[in-house]
């Protein structure tokens, strides 16, 4: 009995070995992957924090809060990004609703248009707004005469940021809403729910995780936006410089510790976003599995 069993075991091992690559290939490939990630991602990110904390935590904190222009840039980014995200939540939900729940001519065209901000370079996006709202643009003189400031001011920063990050939420919601289908909504309507009731009680609970996922991605991109904001900001220190612009400015003004301090805050925000994203992916896969189980039983 025994010898036979061992031949079976060794033959399975041989089979497994023949299906796998030799050890040295595996070690080499895995090592290479770690090396590339280490050199391209881990070391540069770690270096941002190293440079920022070089003078100690006290100096780091001073670099962040003692300069009013730096303080303002952090504040500005934390106010521009959420407003742009909020605009995109409203727009993204409306667009996803329209595209997944209605059939109309030009629907595919609209879906394509939604991706346009991804295809357009952010700098060009900034210039487009400059041509619209700048003093030499179509609406500039009228806006000036009515005392409305758009470019070189807060509204312009929000507009370009919202434009550049527009596809994130809609793109995230369209597949989710397609997958869920409209059965539950039709059932709600047939039972006498009005539009708002259907929306708040059926649609929103169904898409909430997809929506949150879109919001997180959208916010990460909004806070880091450089190109488009660079064009419309006017670079006024303490007024229209967002955090990414401030990083560049401090670097150019030979203030490396200050520059890396601001960069480290941006990086930290990105890392937080990453963890939120992982948590959410875990959460949604969990929920989906649960929903499937319920469906089976």
């Amino acid at each position: 009995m025994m010898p036979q069993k061992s031949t079976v075991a060794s033959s399975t091992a041989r089979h497994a070995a023949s299906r796998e690559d030799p050890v040295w290939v595996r070690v080499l490939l895995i090592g290479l992957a770690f090396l590339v990630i280490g050199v391209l991602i881990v070391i540069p990110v770690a270096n941002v924090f190293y440079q920022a904390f070089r003078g100690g935590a006290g100096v780091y904190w001073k670099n962040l809060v003692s300069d009013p222009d730096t303080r303002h840039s952090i504040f500005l980014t934390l106010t521009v990004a959420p407003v742009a995200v909020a605009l995109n939540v409203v727009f993204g939900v409306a667009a996803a609703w329209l595209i997944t729940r209605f059939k109309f001519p030009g629907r595919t065209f609209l879906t394509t248009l939604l991706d346009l901000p991804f295809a357009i370079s952010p700098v060009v996006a900034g210039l487009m707004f400059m041509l619209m709202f700048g003093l030499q643009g179509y609406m500039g003189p009228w806006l000036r005469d009515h005392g409305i400031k758009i470019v070189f001011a807060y509204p312009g920063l929000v507009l370009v940021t919202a434009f550049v990050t527009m596809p994130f939420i809609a793109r995230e919601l369209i597949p989710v809403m397609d997958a869920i289908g409209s059965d539950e909504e039709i059932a709600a309507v047939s039972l006498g729910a009005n539009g708002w009731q259907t929306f708040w009680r059926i649609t929103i609970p169904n898409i909430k995780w997809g929506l949150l996922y879109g919001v997180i991605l959208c916010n990460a991109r909004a806070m880091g936006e450089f190109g488009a904001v660079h064009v419309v900001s006017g670079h006024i220190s303490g007024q229209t410089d967002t955090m990414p612009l401030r990083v560049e400015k401090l670097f150019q003004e030979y203030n490396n510790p200050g520059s890396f301090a601001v960069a480290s805050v941006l990086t930290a925000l990105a890392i937080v976003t990453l963890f939120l994203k992982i948590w959410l992916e875990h959460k949604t896969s969990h929920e989906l599995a649960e929903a499937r189980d319920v469906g089976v039983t």
Partner: protein
Amino acid sequence: MSRRSLQNIAIVLLIAVVWPVARQIQQRFANESAPEAVESRTVVREVALLNVSYDPTRELWQAVNAKFVTKYESETGVKLTIKQSHAASGSQARAIADGLEADVATLSLWPDLDLLRKKALIKAGWEDEFPNGSVPYFSTVVFVVRKGNPKGIHDWADLGKPDTSIITPSPKTSGNGRLALLGAWGSVVLQGGSEENAREFVTRIYRNVPVLDTGARGATVTFSQKGIGDVHLAVESEARLEVRESNGELELVYPTKSIRHDPPVAIVDAVVERRGTQDVAKSYLDYLYTPEGQVVIAEHDFRPLDAEVLTKFADRFPKVELFTVEDIGPNWDAVQKKFFAEGALFDSIYQEIHRSDSAK
């Protein structure tokens, strides 16, 4: 515990954390943007100015603003804040034309300010509003090289040596960039060379420029912090700052002759009239001509007009024979048209370089 109640607890916690932070931020913002609400009894009024300037003057204006604000507030009792914006001179002129609300424009070159006159933002005759043709200080273009000057660069002609990599910003946007080109041009034509020779020399230089940054400060970062290039053609103040910050890694080289840099200043009439800031803008720019203002200028390596101040800081400013833009062409308008306009000399040189590069 059900998931719903867990969620509710999470939401309450989130609000408990976010709310105080948001309040703090809001209060700080309120304090910053509206100090008169807090100090309405002591401060009569407050004014804000925006100074839109070119790249190398960041440190200069920070110092001037600090001094002028103290002086102005003590004399008038008006609270003054001055904001700065810096980029390449040509880009800044464009931004003001696009609606950037500059009360004063302090740019690198005459054509950039005159563009604003053409756009009806500045009144004709702006050059006569302040002394010396509204040019409060001057400067020139010098060379920055690596420690020990390994490529042996001592004058303009050395820039034509093979294998000499040159850093200078783009003449299309930057004042520094245009001056460097005109300096190279003048070094040939003003020493008996023909225009053909000059064109050939300038083409050789730009063939060896690996990066054309849009602004002067960008070029400085490319040369000093990214370590690209053998020589940096920079405005004197930018060069001296760069060398000071380099911990002995960079050296200054003064050519025997160079181009005179006359950066003009102006009040942007269309903006100050709407904002009611004429008077403060006027005294701000007037301050540059006072002995005190001239000292701050000299301290930041720009050459002061005031002869006494210039003598006091003479060790900073080695004697260089300066030629002007007018020596090259009859006036700035003609020079701008001949060299930098769309399809003019610089464009055609650049196309030539690209053609020969791709033919290789």
